């Protein structure tokens, strides 16, 4: 079943298609085709024939939030170990072969997904599929591989987290925000558990989750869906589905009924700031309207030079040197809505927090300025045009969406859903989400500072 997305080139090509007008195209021709192999492996193809380049990605529907208790970091550790070897590939040979073909490869792990990719000349796609499908089921590890690579991930943690007070602070914020869900555990893992990760942990995580019916093949670039289908059936289609892979079901958050606060002090902090996070709903299949409202709320509050927090706190009151609002709705489970204020010289963290709370309260009371909302929607429409210059970016959007519980239809509906959101819906979402009872407020401080 090849489902080809209707081409809207006519709309885009028309000179009358002004992004500034209300009837402008809200979606662009993404040249996307999707289908599913017999063993349950989903395939997404994004065509761009401007250059003979292809990006080959396999996204697994498993991330750090799917780890068993006690082995934090195993999803990411396994991602590293996947480069070690199979029955037919020596350790490091996959990357070396990609390089020998003029390509680059890497992988990444998040809470909800683990993905592997190569970017290479389009006529090397078959070789990429041959090697990637091989390590989907034939991983072979030695004790030495495991021991050395454990040192590497510990150094990675040192570099990303232990050496950076902002990262350590963020880790504590997350751990405080999520009372029961694994989003509260860092993707890279807690150091004391990382030190104990062993080969059995890696291989059991591998056999539990790495299977075609738990994976999505995402190809972008100079390919045709027909060719991708032929190769995908040959290399991935022959791998039996694993019937033990079931829908993900993680411990969910209980009701949050008290505001949490934390103060993180570290001598390495140069610029203190206040970070507030609120528990927030994510994009759900067939039900993305509230997430769309929160996405726009983040833009309106803290999305740039003309946003409300910036206007009030940086231009008018000059309480802050910087402010921002963030919402990442592409997640499998409840996520967070975050605001940050970096106080101006001479402003205390308490004054900054109070000013931020006042601004948030004022915004909810005042309502959305229609002109501001229209301008953001216009930019989102234009971003659909610019996005066509980067099909790998479009491919990643599908990879993230499909590993976060969304369907292809949901990913494609998202731009239109954003365009349809009203100011009232945004304020309703703000009232629901910006609740102190489900929030964490963190102060990042130098360790010689007093809190009052």
């Amino acid at each position, binding site marked *: 079943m090849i489902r080809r997305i209707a081409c809207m080139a006519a709309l885009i090509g028309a000179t009358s298609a002004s992004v500034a007008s209300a009837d402008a195209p809200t979606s662009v021709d993404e040249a996307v085709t999707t289908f599913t192999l017999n063993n349950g492996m989903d395939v997404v193809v994004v065509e761009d024939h401007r250059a*003979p380049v292809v990006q080959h990605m396999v996204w697994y529907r498993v991330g750090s939030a799917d780890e068993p208790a006690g082995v934090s970091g195993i999803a990411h550790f396994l991602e590293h170990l996947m480069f070690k070897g199979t029955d037919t590939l020596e350790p490091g040979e996959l990357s070396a072969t990609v390089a020998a073909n003029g390509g680059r490869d890497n992988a990444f792990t998040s809470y909800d997904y683990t993905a592997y990719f190569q970017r290479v000349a389009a006529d090397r796609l078959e070789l990429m599929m041959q090697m990637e499908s091989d390590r989907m089921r034939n991983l072979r590890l030695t004790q030495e591989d495991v021991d050395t690579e454990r040192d590497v991930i510990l150094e990675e943690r040192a*570099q990303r987290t232990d*050496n950076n007070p902002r990262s350590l602070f963020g880790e504590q914020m997350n751990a405080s925000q999520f009372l029961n869900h694994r989003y509260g555990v860092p993707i890279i893992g807690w150091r004391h558990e990382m030190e104990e990760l062993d080969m059995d942990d890696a291989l059991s995580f591998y056999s539990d989750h790495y299977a075609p019916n738990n994976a999505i093949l995402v190809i972008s670039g100079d390919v045709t869906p027909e060719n991708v289908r032929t190769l995908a059936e040959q290399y991935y289609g022959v791998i039996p589905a694993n019937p033990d892979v079931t829908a993900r079901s993680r411990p969910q958050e209980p009701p949050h009924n008290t505001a949490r606060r934390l103060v993180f002090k570290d001598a390495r902090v140069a610029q203190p700031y206040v970070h507030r996070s609120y528990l927030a709903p994510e994009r759900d299949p067939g039900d993305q309207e509230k997430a769309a409202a929160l996405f726009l709320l983040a833009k309106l509050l803290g999305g740039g030079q003309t946003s409300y927090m910036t206007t009030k706190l940086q*231009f008018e009151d000059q309480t802050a040197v910087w402010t921002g609002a963030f919402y990442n709705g592409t997640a499998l489970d409840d996520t967070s809505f975050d605001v940050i204020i970096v106080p101006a010289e001479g402003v205390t963290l308490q004054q900054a927090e109070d000013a931020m709370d006042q601004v948030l309260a004022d915004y909810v009371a005042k309502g959305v300025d229609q002109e501001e909302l229209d301008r953001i929607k216009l930019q989102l429409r234009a971003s659909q045009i610019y996005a066509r210059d980067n099909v790998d970016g479009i491919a990643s959007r599908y990879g993230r969406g499909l590993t976060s519980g969304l369907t292809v239809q949901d990913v494609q509906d998202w731009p239109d859903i954003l365009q349809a959101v009203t100011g009232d819906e945004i304020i309703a979402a703000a009232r629901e989400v910006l609740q102190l009872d489900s929030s964490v407020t963190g102060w990042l401080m130098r360790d010689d500072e007093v809190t009052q």
Partner: protein
Amino acid sequence: MTRVKALLVAVAAVFIALPAWAEVKIKEVTSPGGITAWLVEDHSIPFTALELRFRGGTSVDDPEKRGAINLMTGLLEEGSGDLESQDYARALENLAASFTYDAQSDAISVSTRFLTENRDQAMDLLRTTLMQPRFDQSALDRVRAQVISGLKSDAKDPGAIAGRTFAEAAYDGHPYETDGKGTIDSVTALTREDMFAAHKAVFARDRLYVGAVGDITAEDLGALLDTLLGDLPETGAPLPVQADLDIPAGITVIDYDTPQSTVLFGQEGMERDHEDFFPAYILNHILGGGSFESRLMTEVREKRGLTYGVYSYLVPKDYAALYMGSVASSNDKVAEAIEVVQDEWRKLATEGVTAEELEAAKTFLTGAYPLRFDGNGPIASIMVGMQMQDLPIDYIATRNDKVNAVTLDDIKRVAADLLDPDGLHFVVVGKPQGLETTTN
């Protein structure tokens, strides 16, 4: 094991037939007013990426006003003509165009993209941005506070501390010696008049380079360039002179209480226009050029687990050439990491590389080259870089031949000349065990 070999043979067989890459067709466009640009026309998406670069960058700062050019660049998006900061931002947002600015030590970059349907309005706004900046005092004070906040963060960032320490040691008396962002004191003292002076120092015809990619014809681009840039003054502040490098050999430890040491290392490098640049480029790829297969990655990370990443890179700046590298390793392991780096440096200097390594490097570098041209913005940026390096307009078509022409003997000769294992200067920021400062 035989299956491994079979695969390698299959791979080797396809080396021969590298694909015919889509040609990047660059045209040189000279406007009626005499401004030159390189253009790649591609009408498949209705927008254009336009890249402007002004040579000199923050290095043409008045030494007494260090940081002025960086701050001035930060103020370009804070209003122009009749539009104050937020009105300006709204006007830009209403066009759905993007103008971004970057102040580096060799150039100020203005990277833009704009839709075909409102190209004229977008270029009007860009014109006033560059020609009629406001530099309002309120904006100056606000952006200054952000710059100072960044400088305070840099003062506690191990990577920034290492970079500053290395530059101070290497570039005595040259603008490269100090951070283009200035110091807290110098930035605090900057005035509105300094912003206008910095603006005048940077934006001039004699140091301008232009690249455009996308939905625009040569004729339209020519007219656009005259409207946009025709009123630029002929010249600006004097460009810097060549730096006298004096890099002390040995280790400098900067005591900093953090669990992992951050290391920056380097020695003298090679100019981009040197006849041996390609052998040097290939030998760097083999030594530490960023792939998982480099010698440094293999020895420091894959075999010993001493780091998450170790890299080396040629740094051919406009007025100095360095060969640098970086690694981060826990305080109890960093001494070993540095020893391995120095050993690998020495080994390559004395023994060169193997035929297999050279072949693998060539195949990678020639195969990866076309992958860079992956979007209107990146291509515009690459074209401007080519012009600044004085490369010919057909360079892209000949570049892989230059890589393929390098021989094992070339590498051996250049490695012996270039690599100076005992001359390497290591700056170590952290609490490294078993390491002490050995430089003066």
